[in-house]
């Protein structure tokens, strides 16, 4: 069976966290055991509960412990707008940074044929269903500006075109506070060709 000591198992288990190597996981383990037992107990309890209860929202696919998430069940939000993102963390990023008041749809990643990820794997069938049944007037595509995100956006656009909704895509270009000299050529040419009048 497992002949590792409990301490070793803890150190090993902590390494599943992003950015944590052997050295830091060891520090974390000793810190929890020697200085913060109550914090560690709380962590263990919340972690167990979260892993047990958090699932995907029935409507938008984001992470939630309820059948329908807080955003989807909020009556104040504008149900005619739907923003499509690649992951739950994108929802949080948009919520924190913008005044967007519509609803979301979270894809399970992006189309990437070389990784074996096609339209069905990221839940686009569910999105198509939603577009058909709900009265959505605008969809905002907020996939990442990678080529996979680009392909996903194009696929969604083709899918939604037949539904008679306005399809918009978030702008991409030079970051705020950046300097043109240091921006890579692709971004700059994109920013240039997508220049706008609303500034």
């Amino acid at each position: 069976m497992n002949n590792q000591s409990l301490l070793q198992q803890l150190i090993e288990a902590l390494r599943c966290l992003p950015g944590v190597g052997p050295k830091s996981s060891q520090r974390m383990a000793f810190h929890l055991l020697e200085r913060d037992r109550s914090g560690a107990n709380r962590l263990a309890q919340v972690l167990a509960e979260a892993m047990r209860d958090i699932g995907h929202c029935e409507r938008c696919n984001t992470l939630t412990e309820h059948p329908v998430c807080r955003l989807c069940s909020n009556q104040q939000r504008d149900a005619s707008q739907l923003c499509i993102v690649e992951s739950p963390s994108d929802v949080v990023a948009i919520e924190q940074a913008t005044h967007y008041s519509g609803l979301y749809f979270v894809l399970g990643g992006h189309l990437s044929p070389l990784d074996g990820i096609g339209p069905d794997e990221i839940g686009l069938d569910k999105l198509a269903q939603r577009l058909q049944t709900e009265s959505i007037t605008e969809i905002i595509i907020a996939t990442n500006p990678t080529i996979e995100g680009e392909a996903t956006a194009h696929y969604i656009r083709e899918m939604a075109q037949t539904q008679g909704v306005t399809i918009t895509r978030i702008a991409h270009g030079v970051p705020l506070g950046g300097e043109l000299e240091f921006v890579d050529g692709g971004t700059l040419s994109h920013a240039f060709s997508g220049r706008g009048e609303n500034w």
Partner: protein
Amino acid sequence: MTAAYIIHRRAYSNSSLILELFSESHGRLPVMARGGRSATTRGRQSWLPFQFCQVQWSGRGEIKSLRSWETVAEPCVLKADALYCGFYINELIQRLTAREQAQPELFQAYARTVMQLAHKNIELQCILRIFEKQLLQCLGYGLLLTHAADSQQPLEAHASYDYQPELGPIACDATQSVVMRVQGQTLLDLHSEQFSNAESMREARQLMRFLLSSYLGSRPLKSRELFMQKSLGE
């Protein structure tokens, strides 16, 4: 430094990337770009597929380490259907070429195809058929498109043929039931890389699909699913 294209990229650990390169001198190979995902470096490179670049790597293992990287030309921006086609040719390269086997001719064909897809001055279907033909040629499965395999007679545009994999076209009459029936015109069009009508284009697609399937094995190409929505073909 050697010329290369990025075929695919995937995230590795916290901040690194593994890039699948298709290079002129060493064929397809994976290289690791350490710190390639971190946003801290000023003017960091955007490692995008379909970009022609000059690269240098080192290492003996299966995954090399990227030493230096320079983009030479403007990035080829593939959009919409051309992007799907780009995924398709990348998937073909990934599935059909062996790692670290130099394929300079295929590299040239790939570079030409990416360029054509970006400029879209030829029909996409046509670009794909020509690439598929060249790919099979470079892999040693070249097609016989000028004369019949059995009789050695030149192909006739209006005759129908049974195309047998790894053998070639064999004359057959219209009533015979065969696996892959094609018109002579289709084969001649594929040879001249100019498609005379929609029918020969359609037949060429079926022929290529049939021939490629025997080399691809049982797992279907994922990028074909992207086209299914509008059944553009391949």
